[in-house]
């Protein structure tokens, strides 16, 4: 009889632990779903900024949240989930880009290249055409700056990312972000000016 009571007591302890584990899992699941709803667009834009393709960017976004699911036990301890997520997304996208070995310059006739919003703009036709031409030229020359300068430039173009968040994502300080973005822009302006003058 006493042995039976001991066995029942042991099983009660285990079921109690299981209940606690389940409630912790539920709160982690809620936090994860909130992250997806609030930041999936940002993650996608970070992935697209590197990979320049919808399929690849979506795959990278899925992988980013899969990693977050695996590390979900650490979610409660994360102070800045947005930056933490941006850092994971950046690493996933860069790893995929390196695995593929693609450069950031892409051909104009690439089917996955985003179509510039030329037709629906309210600006005059000649300015709109020039804008589309500029974007196309930018797509070609964006690989011109070295990687150290290009990375902060790409991240800083994403409207959801502040200089502080860009710095935290790349693991550098804000002053370095500003300096590198400035130098990258100088290089781009020179290249763009050469292309635009050459096309005229």
């Amino acid at each position, binding site marked *: 009889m*006493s*042995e039976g009571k*001991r*066995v029942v007591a*042991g*099983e009660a*302890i*285990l*079921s109690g632990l*299981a209940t606690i*584990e389940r409630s912790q*899992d539920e709160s982690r*699941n809620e936090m*994860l*779903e909130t992250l*997806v*709803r609030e930041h*999936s*667009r940002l993650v*996608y*834009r970070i992935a*697209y*900024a590197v990979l320049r393709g*919808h399929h690849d*960017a*979506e*795959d990278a*976004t*899925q*992988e980013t*949240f*899969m*990693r977050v*699911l*695996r*590390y979900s*036990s650490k979610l409660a301890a994360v102070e800045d989930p947005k930056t933490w997520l941006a850092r994971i997304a950046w690493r*996933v996208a860069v*790893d995929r880009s390196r695995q593929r070995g693609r450069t950031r310059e892409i051909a104009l006739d690439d089917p996955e290249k*985003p179509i*510039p*919003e030329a037709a629906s703009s309210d600006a005059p036709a000649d300015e709109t055409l*020039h*804008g589309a031409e*500029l*974007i196309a*030229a*930018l*797509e070609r020359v*964006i690989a011109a700056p070295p990687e150290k300068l290009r990375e902060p*430039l*790409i991240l800083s*173009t*994403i*409207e959801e990312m502040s200089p502080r968040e860009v710095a935290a994502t790349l693991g550098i300080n804000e002053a370095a972000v500003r300096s590198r973005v400035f130098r990258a*822009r100088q290089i*781009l*302006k020179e290249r*763009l*000016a050469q292309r635009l003058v050459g096309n005229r």
Partner: protein
Amino acid sequence: MGEQDYNDAGRQGQAGGRDAENDVLDRELDAALAKYAAIEPRPGLEERILANLRSQRTSTADRAWWKWGLAGALAAVVVVAAALAWISGKPSPPQIVQHPSTIEQSPNPPQMPIVASDDHPAVQHVIRPTRTAGGHRAPPAAMAEANPKLDVFPSPRPLSEQEKILESYVNQFRQEAVLIARARSEQEIRDQQEEMRDADADEGQHGNGTTIR
């Protein structure tokens, strides 16, 4: 105006022109970079991500329930084994009743190793030849003479030294014995969970592709 003034004015004009051109290029670059990054995901991205996460969680939860079931079974087995070990260590009363004379002649509880002696032949009827420090046993003839035929099979044996020590410990500290068994099973559960987590973390570092199962 002298030639120098013309040159100066010309250079100032050129510098002003370059600045203006630079400003225009800056503005156009800003606009181009903004459009470069302003990409919208295809509709339904959130739902696809959430669906993928839920399916992943379901398969993980199934594995977790299996682990809890196994851990519960292990804990129950450990507790029952501890209880059975304690019970099996008790001497059975009916066997002792068959030899009343031997009981009278050996009043001391079996806590010390008893060595067969010629001066106490009755003792030899109760005690099987135990192992001495050298591990020697009594010769087979003496064993046959000393051991009467019993009705119970298998023949009961007196406790070994280690069994006696365990029996006395469990008798004195019954609660602690059960708690130790329980704590050991819980530690095994925690170790298994950590191993599973480590295995999953190793998978994440290698950056596997996403799959929907």
